[in-house]
């Protein structure tokens, strides 16, 4: 017994406890994200409670906890109907509840604005359509969807006109900047063209207004738990369902539909609802651009350091410096990106390429190009270190063997060394990409925005708009968790975004680490 303590066996257990604690914290993090993120899209049942004072409340039960006084429990309801009540959630003491029901007719409406509506269908009203059954609602939605389609066609036409106008305006700006007198005629011509387009535009607008007014005749009336009627236009309704009347498969189907919407849909309600498509797209494009810069630069620099530079004090110092750069805080890179890329190079480019748009900046403000360059700078050391290590791990004999056969250094590099180092280089690149995917601080000051009007890649010339601002999953989390007006209502979306980001990053780094460990094993052959 005494010996057991003297030999320090308890300390072994203490170290084990530390490891257990580490893994438990990590597991907690993952579990919290999973539980909160995976459950968001599952259609919860609607509960109708009748209180002792006769009031009725309809909503989803979110959580229950002990009341402040310590006696009994209270329930948090998501009551929705933000436009009617002004708040999304209500706490109800269990003691106040008279009766709890799950009415099959209770309906959830996901709307374009004001969040969910919880209530029951009263009646449906549209030209040539009247009724109060769910079938009628289905018909209404189908008809409204067709109308919406024609409206979208208008939208496209209008957007096209806008693009043309913007182009002409830009030409005019250019001419004006050049010399207003000399280009008088050309400017006048442009003005006339713009005027013509404006005419077309107005016509279109009138027609669209008419179509829109027609669409708004397709409405349905719902009543909430307290019996207040609310007329809602069909165009406002994204989706409707009666959760208490659905079986598991129907719910599962709805779940999948929502997941699909998450990936391809646009955000709604200041990003707290709807899809993440622009953010996913922005993240992917950012990583892609970043890799295009950091991968070749990092690899070339590493090849130079390892294969070409004379190994001396300078190279050693450079190597230490490069290793260190990987540990420099990302915000430092961010502020550098702002000062050097945005204000330095960007403003310079504007002077040179787009003087007619000044003082409105084109490149002299944050954008995806500058953000990706900043991230590239941040990840170049990671790629350099990984490539150098991979090259350094190749046994010297291989290099000598190749040279002894009369190959040049470059031939050895291309035919033997780089293929051998490629897993290591890939690992570095993937780690760099994972880091870029999760990095937010430098992006915040170099061009990420909460809502980008347009994607950095689209169908209008020149297709790739490197000057545009973009959205990013990581910033999305920060933004909706901290900047949205209604944090509580935004939470589900934050968790979903978090889950997605964590999955992406963990997947990427797992692959990288797997590759690296595999590579480590492979190289051991050199030492027999």
């Amino acid at each position, binding site marked *: 017994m005494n010996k057991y303590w003297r030999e320090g066996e308890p300390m072994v257990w203490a170290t084990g406890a530390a490891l257990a604690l580490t893994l438990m914290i990590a597991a907690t993090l993952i579990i919290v994200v999973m539980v909160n993120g995976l459950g968001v899209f599952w259609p919860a049942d609607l509960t109708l409670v009748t209180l002792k004072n006769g009031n009725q409340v309809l909503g989803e039960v979110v959580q229950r906890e002990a009341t402040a006084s310590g006696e009994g429990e209270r329930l948090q309801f998501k009551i929705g109907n933000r436009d009617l009540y002004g708040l999304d959630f209500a706490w109800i003491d269990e003691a106040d509840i008279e009766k709890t029901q799950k009415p099959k007719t209770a309906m959830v409406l996901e709307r374009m604005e004001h969040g969910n509506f919880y209530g029951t269908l009263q009646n449906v009203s549209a030209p040539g359509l009247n009724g109060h059954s769910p079938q009628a609602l289905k018909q209404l939605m189908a008809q409204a969807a067709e109308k919406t389609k024609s409206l979208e066609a208008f939208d496209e036409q209008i957007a096209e006109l806008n693009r043309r106008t913007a182009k002409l305006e830009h030409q005019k700006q250019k001419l004006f900047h050049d010399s207003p007198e000399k280009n008088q005629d050309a400017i006048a011509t442009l003005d006339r063209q713009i005027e013509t387009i404006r005419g077309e535009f107005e016509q279109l607008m009138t027609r669209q207004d008419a179509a829109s007014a027609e669409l708004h005749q397709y409405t349905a009336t719902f009543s909430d738990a307290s019996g207040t009627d609310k007329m809602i236009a069909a165009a406002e309704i994204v989706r409707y369902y009666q959760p208490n009347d659905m079986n598991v498969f129907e719910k599962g189907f709805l779940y999948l539909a929502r997941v699909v919407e998450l990936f391809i849909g646009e955000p709604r309600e200041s990003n707290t609802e709807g899809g993440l498509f622009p953010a996913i797209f922005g993240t992917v494009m950012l990583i892609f651009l970043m890799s295009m810069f950091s991968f070749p630069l990092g690899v070339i620099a590493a090849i130079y350091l390892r294969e070409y530079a004379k190994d001396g004090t300078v190279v050693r110092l450079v190597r230490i410096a490069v290793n260190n750069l990987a540990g420099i805080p990302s915000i430092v890179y961010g502020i550098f990106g702002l000062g050097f890329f945005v204000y330095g190079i960007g403003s310079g480019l504007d002077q040179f390429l787009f003087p007619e748009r000044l003082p409105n900046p084109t490149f002299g403000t944050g954008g995806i190009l500058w953000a990706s360059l900043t991230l590239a700078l941040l990840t170049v050391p990671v790629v350099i270190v990984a490539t150098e290590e991979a090259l350094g791990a190749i*046994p010297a004999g291989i290099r000598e063997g190749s040279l002894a*056969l009369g190959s040049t250094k470059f031939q050895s590099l291309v*035919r033997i060394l780089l293929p*051998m180092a490629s897993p290591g280089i890939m690992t570095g690149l993937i780690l760099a990409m994972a880091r870029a995917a999760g990095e937010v601080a430098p992006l915040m000051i170099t061009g990420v925005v909460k809502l980008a009007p347009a994607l950095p890649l689209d169908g209008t010339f020149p297709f790739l708009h490197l000057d545009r601002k973009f959205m990013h999953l990581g910033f999305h989390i920060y933004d909706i968790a901290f900047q949205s007006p209604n944090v509580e209502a935004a939470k589900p979306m934050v968790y979903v975004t978090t889950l997605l980001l964590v999955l992406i990053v963990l997947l990427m780094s797992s692959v990288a680490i797997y590759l690296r460990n595999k590579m480590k094993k492979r190289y051991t052959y050199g030492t027999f």
Partner: protein
Amino acid sequence: MNEQPNTGATPAIDARKVNFYYGNSQALHNISLSFPHRQVTALIGPSGCGKSTFLRCLNRMNDLVDGARVEGQILLGDTDINSAAMDVIELRRRVGMVFQKSNPFPKSIYENVIYGLRIAGVKDPRVLDAAVETSLKGAALWDEVKDRLQQSALGMSGGQQQRLCIARAIAVNPEVILMDEPCSALDPKSTARVEELIGELRQNYTIIIVTHNMQQAARVSDHTAFLYEGLLVEHGLTKKIFMKPKNKQTEDYITGRFG
């Protein structure tokens, strides 16, 4: 300095007064040594005596070492290998090398053998196929691997890998093959195979072999040179050196009193 053994022919490589420096320290002192055509010369001596360094001078592998410097002449045919007239690539193709540790590339057996041809721009598959067969046969490996030419060279045994390296070296048809302790990492059976192979290769190639193993030197070589602390102590026909060395140090080394 030393009596030159009479070989009757012009040497394949003739080193004259070679001094070699790593930075400020001199590793080889005034070594003059010639290697006769199509014969095996063994370089022996204790660790750190400079035999590997000398060997690596012969195909300028020491160029890769920072701060290395050679003085004196090393003639391959009529050209000084360190002169501008000799291209290092050309030199290494003419003077092949096999290393202590076998170092096959992580490629297929086939690709390993033809690596030297590929980098020289040979593309004709018939030429390549023929070269693989001749080289592997030359390295006495053909029968063992002819059915798995496309498999990775890393899957071979240690002895096979070393013979593959020899095949790789002879595929470019060199005049001289340098061998830097080719058997030190091999088991006795593989060693015997490689020694046998050296015996066959001497028909066509001039071979210079560095070895630690006295018996091996005695078995495979025609000439032997004993180096000690960067100096060439004694040089002559292997029989002579092993039977009655002139120098006391040589005798002590050969009889195993030091080294």
